[in-house]
């Protein structure tokens, strides 16, 4: 199979959107699912959420932020290039039905995986309230796409450069206390954001789902690398998740697990940064 990149665009600083040929995956994709990809022969297998899919064109959309070697390498691929391996759709799809009012809370790059879920939530007849946050205005992605499907969209930035000056938790708190109180919150974003959203909604007893970005190898339950504590149970993010009850997830443990390979990640990134300089003649 050939996973050719047919479109590539920069959505913001170090954030890219790619459309990739993967007809089998596109046909089966449901909101909440992800792929595991390997850019080239020496590459690592990493999970990336499917941000959108077009089953007729046989395309899936991937949105990613450059953070390490693999995403840097992926961002260096261009239209016409092929990704070595893409497999999916993995994970249990989001449980979507008419819950009433649903607040979709997205932070930074987390808005990408949130988009197909929000779309599904809206389609199922829910009142959709989007609460989107980013560090600063330039880092916002998919604002228009999200607005198009929302009944109400609230924006905030950490530095006040756009929308409300503050965190998504501040905005969410106001919404919960208003007469637009959601019946369900779905939060996707950086780990601390999901942790504090869950803490807040637990106080207010609003059911909350979060989507976890554990480290994975195979993505099919085979290795157990992505295991997380959910309440008293151990769950595998790849097959049991990636969505879990935010009130039960041990975020601190997950945070430590995500940092485990930080040293090697830096080595790989620095090495690739050097190679990149050499290959373009050192400009």
């Amino acid at each position, binding site marked *: 199979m050939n996973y050719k990149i047919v479109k590539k665009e920069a959505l913001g600083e170090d954030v890219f959107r790619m459309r990739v040929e993967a007809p089998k995956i596109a046909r089966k994709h449901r909101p909440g699912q992800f792929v595991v990809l390997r850019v080239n022969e020496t590459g690592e*297998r990493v999970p990336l959420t499917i941000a959108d899919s077009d089953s007729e064109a046989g395309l899936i959309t991937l949105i990613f932020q450059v953070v390490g070697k693999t995403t840097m390498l992926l961002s260096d691929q261009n239209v016409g290039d092929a990704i070595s*391996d893409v*497999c999916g759709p*993995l994970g249990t799809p989001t449980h979507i039905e008419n819950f009433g009012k649903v607040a979709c809370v997205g932070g930074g790059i987390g808005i990408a995986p949130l988009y197909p879920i929000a779309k599904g939530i809206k389609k199922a007849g829910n009142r959709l309230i989007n609460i989107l946050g980013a560090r600063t205005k330039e880092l916002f992605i998919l604002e228009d796409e999200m607005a198009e499907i929302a009944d109400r969209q609230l924006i905030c930035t950490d530095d006040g450069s756009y929308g409300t000056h503050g965190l998504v938790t501040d905005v969410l708190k106001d919404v919960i206390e208003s007469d637009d109180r959601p019946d369900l919150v779905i939060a996707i974003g950086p780990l601390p954001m999901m942790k504090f959203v869950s803490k807040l909604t637990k106080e207010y007893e609003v059911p909350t789902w979060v989507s976890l970005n554990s480290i994975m*190898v195979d993505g*099919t339950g085979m290795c*157990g690398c992505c295991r997380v504590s959910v309440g008293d149970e151990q769950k595998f993010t790849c097959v049991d998740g990636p969505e879990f009850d935010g009130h039960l997830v041990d975020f601190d*443990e997950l945070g430590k697990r995500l940092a485990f390979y930080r040293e090697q990640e830096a080595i790989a990134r620095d090495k690739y940064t050097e190679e990149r300089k050499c290959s373009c003649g050192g400009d």
Partner: protein
Amino acid sequence: MTDKPKKPKKEKIPRQKMPEQDPIERGRNFDEVPFGYTPELAQLEAKRCIQCKKPKCITGCPVGVDIPGFIKLIQDGDFLGAARKIKEDNSLPAICGRVCPQEEQCEQVCILGKKQESVAIGNLERFVADYERAHGGFQMPEMSSATGKKVAIVGSGPAGLTAAGELVKKGHQVTIFEAFHKTGGVLVYGIPEFRLPKAIVQEEVDYLVQLGVEIQTNFIVGKMDTIDELLEQGYDAVFVGTGAGLPWFMGIPGERLNGVYSANEYLTRSNLMKAYAFPEYDTPIARGNTVVTIGGGNVAMDSARTALRLGAEESWIVYRRSRTELPARTAEVHHAEEEGINFNFLTLPLKIEGDETGRVKGMECQKMKLGEPDASGRRRPVPIEGSEFFLPCDTVIVAIGNGPNPIVPRTTPDMETNRRGNIIAVYEWGRTSKPKVWAGGDIVTGAATVIMAMGAGKKASASIHRELMGLPDPEPEPEEEDK
């Protein structure tokens, strides 16, 4: 190669050992441990076989290889003929010669074993397979004409590869679906390079491709197409050989600390993803100084020996029973000991402890003693009160076994599974409760051996072939026979 063995005058040739790498040196590299027989050694060893009239070794082989037949050809110096002889019954001899537990199968029942050591059948199998690869390579086997029937094989491990090879030779159109990016299943992700070089697996796979088997990697049956969808798309039969792909943990505190791995993860990172070559390859792995592997099977030995090769100063095996109960092959235990793996027998892990960053710093253990035999017939380990001790370490590998991977069973509701989640298949022919679907290997039996999986793949392929050709399975007819 001309001397004909006359009736030997009771000259007792001792069992020939394979030359191998020095233990200390090899403990730091990933090259294969034994070098294999030279032709001279192979012929010397082959001469030990007395060519029994009623050979027991054949019945000891799960795939029924004509063992005296191929050994006779080695005696005669026809090494290529010997390789072809094995391939009549076993399409993966280079692999089986390396990883089969011959000491529990063919070699265990070898008549010579009663008075002296049995014939080194495994070493001879390995020799001829390697010889064939080095000299002239594969010969196309006899192929039946195309039947126009299509078979889907789910999983490319030993069960799936075997079934694919058998079915393609019978003229069926065979497609293998593999979830990983590479073909071979446990042979590539699980068994380390130093025990089974990946180039050998690749050659066996290439051979199947030459025979006409189509392989689709990155294809997760159950997620892309379900088994029902494969049947709807025109496959006449499906064989499920998805393996034991869901690692067990112990359920003790600390198992989610950094530095705790399932053996599957540890071995997959190292073998399939080549983390040992980081940063040439991008996948990282913890290079611990003190690594403790929990478990006593072959996978535990592979993990402990991999840890050593990744630079561990100390590599420990912690096992709750005693040496005699170790499920690993004797040869593997021996290799591990030679390389300097330490064993802590009769030891039960109670708790893994970590530092403030979440990294493993040691394991609280308890000493055990052997009590009365349990259901498995092995003496049950009983904790000794007050014997708790702390074993400092920075990496822990949990190698206590695997359950069945849930993806295929969960997406095939009308295929029966047992309480553990294993697919129920009639062993003899591998038929499941679902029409047109067969299963075999670890997904049915729980974690077993490569050759057991191959045996299941072979039996199922025979049954599939009969069904596709409108022939009945021979007696004894399994009860769950589907119409």
